[in-house]
């Protein structure tokens, strides 16, 4: 079973091709020989892959590995195969706050029809206001946060349900 990692919204498969004499990994079918695998854990580190010597910084935050390489930062997600099955589709039903902040206004009520992109609520975070759009067409199933409420990052402010046929 391959390890599934995500980077910039795409999923990649990492497989161990062989371990001896040297570790060879395959990324989406491309094979790479690891001449030196560096240390485990967080912090400054180095690797030798093929003929390339890489110096990078790595830190694990939750399910993600943050990698800083050649002046650029990357967030590599790890896909839990079980959660992947359980979560399928659930995300699309929630209007989430991308930042911790406070709800300034709620422009819809439960039962309203909304089109994808229409503003459901407005939050304020770090002195900036931002609109939270509906992620898809649908009907507001529930408003979960009221004006003045504090919200955490990725907390749902409203939940959508599918439009019933004919409505």
């Amino acid at each position, binding site marked *: 079973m391959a390890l599934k990692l995500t980077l910039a919204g795409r999923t990649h498969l990492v497989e161990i091709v062989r371990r001896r004499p040297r570790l060879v990994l395959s990324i989406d079918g491309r094979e790479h020989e690891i001449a030196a695998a560096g240390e485990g854990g967080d*912090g400054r580190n180095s690797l030798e892959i093929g003929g390339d010597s890489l110096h990078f910084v790595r830190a694990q935050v939750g399910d993600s590995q943050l990698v800083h390489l050649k002046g650029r930062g990357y967030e590599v997600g790890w896909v839990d195969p079980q959660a992947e099955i359980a979560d399928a589709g659930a995300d699309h039903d929630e209007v989430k706050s991308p930042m911790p902040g406070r709800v300034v206004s709620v422009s819809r009520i439960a039962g309203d029809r909304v089109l994808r992109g229409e503003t459901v609520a407005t939050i304020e975070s770090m002195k900036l206001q931002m609109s939270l759009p509906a992620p898809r067409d649908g009907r507001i199933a529930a408003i979960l946060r009221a004006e003045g409420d504090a919200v955490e990052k990725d907390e749902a402010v409203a939940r959508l349900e599918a439009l019933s046929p004919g409505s």
Partner: protein
Amino acid sequence: MTDPAVTALATPSRTKAPLFRKVMIANRGEIVCRIARTLRQLSIPSLAIFHDAEAGAAHTRVTDEAVEIQGETPVAAHLDARQIIVAAVKAGADAIHPGYGFLSENAAFARAVAEAGLTFIGPDADVIALMGDKISARAFAERHGAPVAPSAVSEGHIDAFIAAAAGIGFPLLIKAAAGGGGKGMKIVRSQEELADAARSAASEALRYFADGRIYAELYVERPRHIEVQVLGDGQGEAVHLFERECSVQRRFQKIIEEAPAPNLPRETRERMLDSAVRLTRAARYRNAGTIEFILAPDGRFFFLEMNTRLQVEHPVTEMITGVDLVRAQVEIAAGQGLPFRQSEIAPRGVAIECRICAEDPERDFLPEIGVVRYLAKPEAPYLRFENALDAHQKVTADFDSMLAKLVAHSETRDAAIGRSIAALRELVIVGVRTNTEYLARVLAHPAFRAGDLHTGFLAEHAQELKSIPPDERTRDHVLIAAALGLRDFREVAFGAPEPHATIGRWRN
């Protein structure tokens, strides 16, 4: 900062008693570290303040003392003028440096500090009030010969304002009279949009500043934002320290500033500097201050506002002049007058400041939060990395998203750009998304290198400034580095004798 002429000007006198007994720095973050550095050079004991949420933060460790202030939120605590003054008196401070933001341009605070018998390291409360209100500041500037853009003010009914604004012509800029930082600011391009924009600006102004007055002015297309650093002694004498270019902005807030302004005709520069000094003298201004101008492509320029405090971007001026502006502020506040005559300073080279912010340029610069998991700060004799960052520090939504400032100096603009880009690549902040890579792309852009700047620069070049995905090989390398950071994967790759037995289910 090593120009011999300037060093001679700024050499501390070691024999005299310190100018103040103790100075409270009523602020937080990098600016506290910056001010504390100069106070230490002046042998003046320093005092920081902090809210419980900032306990142990870098800005509380660089001062000689730190006192806790209470508040429902950290920001509320930092805005609690009365509590801060009481704390200063109790700790035996005889002066308060307000830094920038928070209470730095609050006339009531300046007045209360003076009434408590302390020295406010800034201008008089009346001058702050005069310049803090965009309408009175403009009228003052106009009276003293600074060019101002045609405008309209909402004094009474909003309909009268709408009619007057329409008379200026389009496009128009509508702003909150008491505002700053882009809040309540709107560009109106036609008569049809005007009424709605005016009403919404007025309500936003009321919400942010508890003052619903707004004003409209001619909107200059492709304007440059250029500001002049001044020092006034409060007796009517003033000098300038040349100008700064601050046109590279997102969300109406600066992210890259430089000094001097590139491609500025000599004659325009002279008129701007002259205008700024004249205003500073007329206001009998005391302290370091900044006069902001809008420069039109045709060479006309208009007074925008005066900031009656130290600016975020003051280091670029310090690096080209060799003058320590904080030191000048302290000396002027202590009644020592201006530290030099105009003829004694000359600019040398070019300095560029990049504001490192916790934000995502790919998502409209929305603020980001997180915990700093790894930190590597760039270092070089020609660099100033102004920050109060710690490894393992939490970056929350409690405060502004600016984490640090990276300022680089060199003899030429090209070389200063090169040094800035190299330093941005050297800076590693892992754990919080920042605009570091974006800043490097802006600096490397041909239009930036050409000095072809205006306040719409980032919007105009948005497409070319987008992050380019890494090539396949780099992407594979990143994925391998990440995979080898997963303990279970590592164990299977190197440890267990029989991989197929354990490889069934990865755990993080």
